[in-house]
């Protein structure tokens, strides 16, 4: 039976960010995510050797979700720029190889 349950509105919370937070949470415990009536229900179970109490688990997971939401926001704003940088970096490399080998 899960000790701690948090809920997030499907309309405003990205499932990808929740999954990423659940992944980062693995060291402290496991998280099962279910969708029910427009709410993501995250059931947290502490790891066997975890010293974290319920309040700590809740706070830790919420912090991770906040961070993953921020990471997602950054990625959305910068993905196109990142693609340009990679193209500039490796497009030039490919060009140099073509010139070298004819």
């Amino acid at each position: 039976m899960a000790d701690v349950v948090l809920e997030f509105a499907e309309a405003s919370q990205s499932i990808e960010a929740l999954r990423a937070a659940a992944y980062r949470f693995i060291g402290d415990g496991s998280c099962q995510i279910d969708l029910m009536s427009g709410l993501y229900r995250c059931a947290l179970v502490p790891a066997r050797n975890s010293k974290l109490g319920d309040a700590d688990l809740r706070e830790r997971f919420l912090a991770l979700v906040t961070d993953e939401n921020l990471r997602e926001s950054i990625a959305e704003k910068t993905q196109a720029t990142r693609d340009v940088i990679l193209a500039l970096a490796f497009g030039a490399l490919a060009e140099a190889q073509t010139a070298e080998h004819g």
Partner: protein
Amino acid sequence: MAKFRTSAAFEAATDDLDLLPIRFERLGDGRVIVANMLGDMAILASGDLERIVRLDMAAGSELYATAAEKMFVRRKDQLSSLQILAMRLRSRMGFLRSPTQLHILVVTLRCEHSCPYCQVSRRSTDKDRYDMAPETAERAVLTALSSPSGRIKIEFQGGEPLLNFELIRHIVPFAKQAAVAAKKEVDFVITSNLALLTDEILEFCQEHSILLSTSLDGPADLHNKNRPRPGGNSHELAVQGIQRAQQALGRDRVGALMTTTQASLGRVREIIDEYVRLDLGGIFLRPLSPYGFAVKTKQFTKYDTAEWLEFYETGLRYILQLNRVGRYFPEFYTALLMRRMLTDRPTGFVDLRSPAGVGLGALVYNYDGKVFAADEGRMLAEMGDRTFELGDLPEETYSSLVLSDKLVDMVGASLTQCAPQCSTCAFEPHCGADPVYHHATQGDPVGIKPLSGFCARQKGVFGLLVRLLDESPEDAAILRRWAS
């Protein structure tokens, strides 16, 4: 009469700013490490990170200056930022243009020591069964010289390689001749416990400019406890060997490595003092690896990552103290990381790169002709796990080994640029994939990073180094010097 415009007329409007790709890791004290996609970092207050993401900065403010300097943001019309990031990224990935520079020849599996943490699962007898044959060594050298790199390093390992010194004496001139024909350069290293060092061996090393690398775990009682030998005199012989080699070859031609065991914890200052006493050029505070006898004897599980990080931090701070009073003495792993963090130059350290160094950074030619993608892969094979075995020398060429589906799949699966958690980690540009470690500990080349001892160790070390660079100008100057 013309009037001066106000300063506001010269300030860039922040709605002319674009966010550049950034990552962050929290320090847990209200501060956060923010990094650009090349790993240039700044420690900021949490609120400042959010302001950068919202582009909510007053032009000319300290936060704006930091964000611009570190390339967290750019002016919309500033193409040069993108070009600089691209050029630097290309430099950082330049190691891919000189693949497989390191070639390890395991000339024998025999050894006269009985180290409980031995990673190579040494054997004590049967020369014919566990020594590399000359034909195998020659084939290995020719394969090594087929790598595209213009300069390679051949490292003789074991067991104890001096137990098969006859082979080394044969293969070094063979390799030098073959290198001339291939228009390449070759360097040599022998990794040895030095217990069997003779004047003849030293003369040979001097003649052929061979570097010697040995193990020194600290003062005599600690070293002998970690590295038992008949006679119990491993430390005495190692010290004699180091001093004789320094005299014959030069101080910079002899290096030593230590391995942290449970017995080492709490004694890091004594270990460092022993290295300083022997006038060694630096130290590598190396944790135990999860291979070979270290697993069988359960040495690997006798301390955890947190304990090793405490050992490392105590040791590093002590070393920095030594440097502050005038003794140049780097911690080699820290120096490697500083080079990664402060320059775009490749380090050649195969464990700290993505794509991983397996096969692409190093190949290992075992005594029996089997070829492995990594030294640790060879160690796993001695435990019955042949995942990192690429082939057999008589049948394979360099190309068939490195372009094998097995290696390509392994490297592709373990890219940190794509792995969960790694791909969004602020330290990723300076870190490495280490598929062998994750396979050995979790049965998977990527591993679950929140459960990875490698990841926890790396994050601990990076976090400490970033704090030192930020908080202590004197230590920062020393660390920068190590990077140059």
